């Protein structure tokens, strides 16, 4: 890729999303630099997850624009108008973006190893041997080297989520999206998943993390964003965000969750 000089990876301009009559996103503007770790926090129903899902097109958006690496997501400009991309084009755009879900969503009919090599083999055309070597390396990295042949149902929630992270990484994405990765976990296993995400952050991976874990956001994020009612209403470095100078409405929100 020739974009070594370009620092900006994600650019969202006035993104709007409607579910029927309800406007879930009401003009989201956001920029994410390469290598940046961005945490999005906010009350439930504020549109955080929806925004994340728009970036890799699990949802469509109706207004504004999202660019990843200067490529318009979901639409193409034709004769001055925006036209939705074909399925094939959507699939190509998604390959570069990894996603980790709240409910892990490992394919339950496949072993952990099969889960991880599925997309590299089917989508990227890697050989099984190649994909397996890479998968084993990733599994070691997330501390699951011994669980390669286990079925997801035999694993704890924390182990499943770590396997899901390895599965997303196997596609060598440029951008990783985490949608409340620890919300379905109990406190003991939350730590092991957060440790894996922190380790990943330290490698320079660009990440957008929707989370309710304030301590984690404070520790891992380069920048923290507060979303409320479909808009970004505050963003700052973690020191400022959680510090004493934070605006009153942010303090109100933070006090409701502590």
């Amino acid at each position, binding site marked *: 890729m020739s974009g070594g000089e370009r620092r900006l990876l994600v650019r969202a301009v006035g993104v709007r999303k409607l579910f029927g009559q309800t406007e879930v996103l009401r003009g989201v503007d956001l920029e994410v630099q390469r290598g940046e770790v961005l945490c999005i926090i906010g009350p439930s129903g504020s549109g955080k997850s929806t925004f994340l899902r728009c970036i*890799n097109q*699990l949802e469509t958006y109706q207004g504004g624009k999202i660019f990843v690496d200067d490529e318009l997501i979901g639409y193409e400009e034709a004769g001055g108008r925006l036209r939705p991309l074909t*399925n*094939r084009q959507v*699939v*190509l755009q*998604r*390959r570069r*973006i*990894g*996603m980790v*879900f709240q*409910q892990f*969503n*490992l*394919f*339950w*009919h496949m072993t952990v190893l099969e889960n991880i090599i*599925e*997309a590299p083999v*089917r*989508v990227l055309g890697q050989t099984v041997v190649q994909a397996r070597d890479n998968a084993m390396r990733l599994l070691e990295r997330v501390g699951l080297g011994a669980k390669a042949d286990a*079925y*997801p*149902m*035999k694993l704890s929630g924390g182990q499943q989520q770590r396997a*899901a992270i390895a*599965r*997303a990484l196997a*596609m060598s994405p440029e951008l990783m999206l985490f949608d409340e990765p620890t919300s379905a976990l109990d406190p003991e296993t939350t730590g092991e998943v957060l440790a894996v995400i922190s380790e990943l952050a330290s490698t320079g991976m660009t990440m957008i993390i929707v989370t309710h874990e304030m301590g984690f956001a404070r520790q891992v994020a380069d920048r923290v964003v507060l979303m409320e009612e479909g808009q970004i209403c505050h963003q700052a470095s973690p020191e400022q965000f959680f510090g004493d100078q934070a605006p009153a409405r942010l303090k109100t929100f933070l006090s409701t969750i502590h």
Partner: protein
Amino acid sequence: MTFDWAFFIERIVNPGTPYLNALGRTVTMAVLAMLLGLVIGLIVGFGRLSRFALIRSACAFYVWLIRGIPVLVLLVMLFSGMAAAGLFRFSDIEFLGIKLTASFQAAVIGLAIHEGAYMAEIVRNGVQAVARGQVEAAKSLGMSSWQVNWRIVIPQATRVIVPPFGNDFNHMLKTTSLASVIGVQEIFQVTEAISATTFKSFELLSVVALNYLVLTAIWNTIQGVIETRLRAHEIDRQVRTWWQSLVVYLTPSPSTGERRA
């Protein structure tokens, strides 16, 4: 009551070539109709989930129509009714050196049309049972709709589809006896023909009833082994081969059905 046990046992031990041929015909008819019914069911079942309203309606209409017609009526309509109306007349054909009689073809097609309507509902239910998160995860990995369907949706739906599919095949093995009315020489038809000459109808019908029972019992075991294999992900013992699956299926174990929350 006089039940001629000697005759009954003799018929089981030494059924004779016409009966064995008829048995082959019964099983072949059931298997072919089921496979064809599965193909129809997959097409119509996925059709009912189509993005296009016209396809959805057409498939819903098929299910509605066929489920409202008795198989017996359907078979006679296909074979005699259509011929009488000059619409279509089945004729004997030879396929790979095997002679397929007109009535056999009509029976397979009629049974398949009937089964297809029920399979469509089973397939639709199975596909809808696949969790949305599984599809989203596959999409997020850059898999195409085709790959998502073949690698994730269909394998997962199969786990839901197999038990009712097996149940339908159990039915099908016995429903083939209706083909006797259009002249297919399957086990029931052949039995009726023999009983007309021997007057030992009860003994002969007992043999044929036992025969259906054995067929369904064999199928139940096969189905159990298939289901055990499909549950490999939730069974503690290793089930990689068919033999291991058979052993696990035949070993009553309270832990095999347990799911981790």
